[in-house]
């Protein structure tokens, strides 16, 4: 009896975790299952199974174009957010910089401002400075959103970096730039890699900012949203499943690489 009571909290925790896990996975599993249904509406039972929806999706010109467009935006976002993020992280970690706390707070602000507010303010801003809606504006918004995550990841890594490493490089004949290139950057690599994967995933996933700042060309989330308005069909499930599988693979791979390079 005693052990039963002692173990009760543990058992309860374990059980509630599994309930949570099921809640987490079940909708995804359902969505994936429906993508194999041989009918053009979504309902149980599934009945006949088919791969035809996937065949349709991969031949869908709209889907392919939106995918490429999303990937392009994600890459541009990643490059610009990484450069800006590393720069801010270095600034914040440097000695003798005035207003470090302010710089850091400002850089992190976009991570806590609600996406909708961010999107609306960006829309007003680009209007004011005459930037047209479209690709550039989307990249701008995605970059602002991704920078804080790069800053935090790089800063965490920088703080674990022994100060003597750069001193050693300088001592052995490297000027500040060479020391940065040959010692700091390689040391930051795991954080940079993690940050970049994060940039890609948030950019591809983003809907609100893209919706407010985009032009006529749809990104993947916008395309799926448009299709959903026309009614759910297993085709959308197939699209979503492809996106889910690809992004999960990227995330797992990134986690694996980061973990390996840390040990």
């Amino acid at each position, binding site marked *: 009896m005693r052990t039963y009571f002692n173990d009760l909290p543990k058992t309860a925790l374990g059980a509630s975790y599994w309930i949570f896990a099921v809640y987490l996975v079940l909708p995804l599993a359902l969505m994936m299952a429906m993508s194999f249904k041989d009918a053009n509406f979504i309902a149980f039972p599934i009945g006949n199974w088919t791969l035809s929806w996937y065949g349709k999706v991969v031949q869908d010109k709209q889907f392919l174009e939106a995918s490429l467009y999303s990937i392009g935006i994600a890459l541009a976002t990643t490059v610009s957010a990484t450069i800006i993020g590393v720069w801010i992280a270095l600034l914040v970690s440097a000695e003798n910089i005035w207003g470090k706390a302010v710089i850091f707070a400002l850089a992190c602000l976009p991570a806590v401002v609600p996406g909708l507010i961010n999107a609306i303010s960006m829309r007003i801003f680009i209007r004011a400075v005459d930037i047209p809606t479209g690709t550039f504006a989307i990249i701008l918004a995605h970059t602002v959103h991704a920078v804080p995550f790069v800053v935090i990841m790089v800063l965490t890594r920088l703080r674990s970096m*022994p100060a*003597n*490493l750069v*001193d*050693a*490089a*300088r*001592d*052995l*004949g*490297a*000027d500040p730039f*060479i020391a940065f290139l*040959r*010692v700091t950057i*390689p*040391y930051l*690599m795991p954080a940079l890699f993690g940050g970049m994967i994060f940039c890609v995933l948030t950019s591809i996933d983003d809907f609100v900012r893209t919706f407010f700042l985009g032009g006529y060309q749809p990104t993947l989330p916008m395309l799926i949203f448009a299709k959903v308005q026309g009614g759910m069909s297993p085709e959308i499930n197939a699209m979503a499943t492809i996106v889910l599988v690809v992004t999960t693979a990227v995330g797992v791979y990134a986690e694996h690489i980061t973990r390996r390079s840390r040990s």
Partner: protein
Amino acid sequence: MQPVVHFKNVNKSYGALTAVDDLDLAIAPGQFVTLLGPSGCGKSTTLRMLGGFDSPTTGEIYLEGKPISHLPPNKRNVNIVFQDYALFPHLTVGRNIAFGLELKGMGSAAIHRRVGELLALVSLEDHAERMPAQLSGGQRQRVALMRALAPDPNVLLLDEPLSALDAKLRQQMQIELKSIQKKTGKTFIFVTHDQEEALTMSDVIVVMNKGRIEQMGGPDELYARPRSRFVANFIGQSNFLEGTVASVSDGIAAVEWRGNLVRADVNGTSPIPGDHVTVALRPEAVFCLSRKPEDRPSLKARIDQRVFKGAHTSLTVMLDNGSALVAQIDPVALSHIEGDDVWVGWRDSDAVLLAK
């Protein structure tokens, strides 16, 4: 001979804190010089100023006769071995050592040869492809040393590089460091707070305290002839006898110490009768005998504590005048225990007057 390193009236202060106070230090080439002192004595700051990571507030540092205070670290022909080694974690052992050579623009064949030579010097030839994380502490230490030696610096700086190693390995590395210094003939400037390291390896020890040089000289000289209470206490152990000078003749002072007249070497000072002085006396210079010796002065004492230390035994004896003395004796020669009476004394030249 022109000194290879010369600090001329160098001061370094951080705000109100003075780290190095009017340092004047000339170091002859090819020597193993140790800057010894407690933490905060300015020894590391001195080293960092020479390496180029700090600049003097006033004064100038000369390397082979040329002023270098304004030069960045990469423009100075000195290299440093850091306390935590600071090996580049993403580069192999070989690439770590090659780092300075690559920046010098040396060809890859020449680099390969030089790295091989250096690794052979510390018997790590087959470790060139390993990563620093795969090395033991002692191996990392050796790689850091070779990396710093690779660009052929005039002066090698070592910032407490042995402090992270365990005692056995530390002793082994002391001998190895000294032998590498002899083999390469380079000037080594070694910073430590460990007097044993300093005594083992150095040609010259510079004892620093509160940003100033307390005393500078060979290990044997510093040990046998400390000039100040600080040095006598920091290097080895000492008994301190405070008294008044009664008379001085032939470099030996007779000191009135708590009712007894004891004799000590004047040790370069010029005391006059009536001066208040401190006499330093090493425990191993104190003899303890069971009977009063006829041929030399001695004092009666009672053993207060007897502590076995392995190679020797440490005795704390209480003199009739109420003072305690620590003596280090051969445990076989004297078997007396606590409470027994003994006669203690020392040779006149083994006790020294301190200047301050």
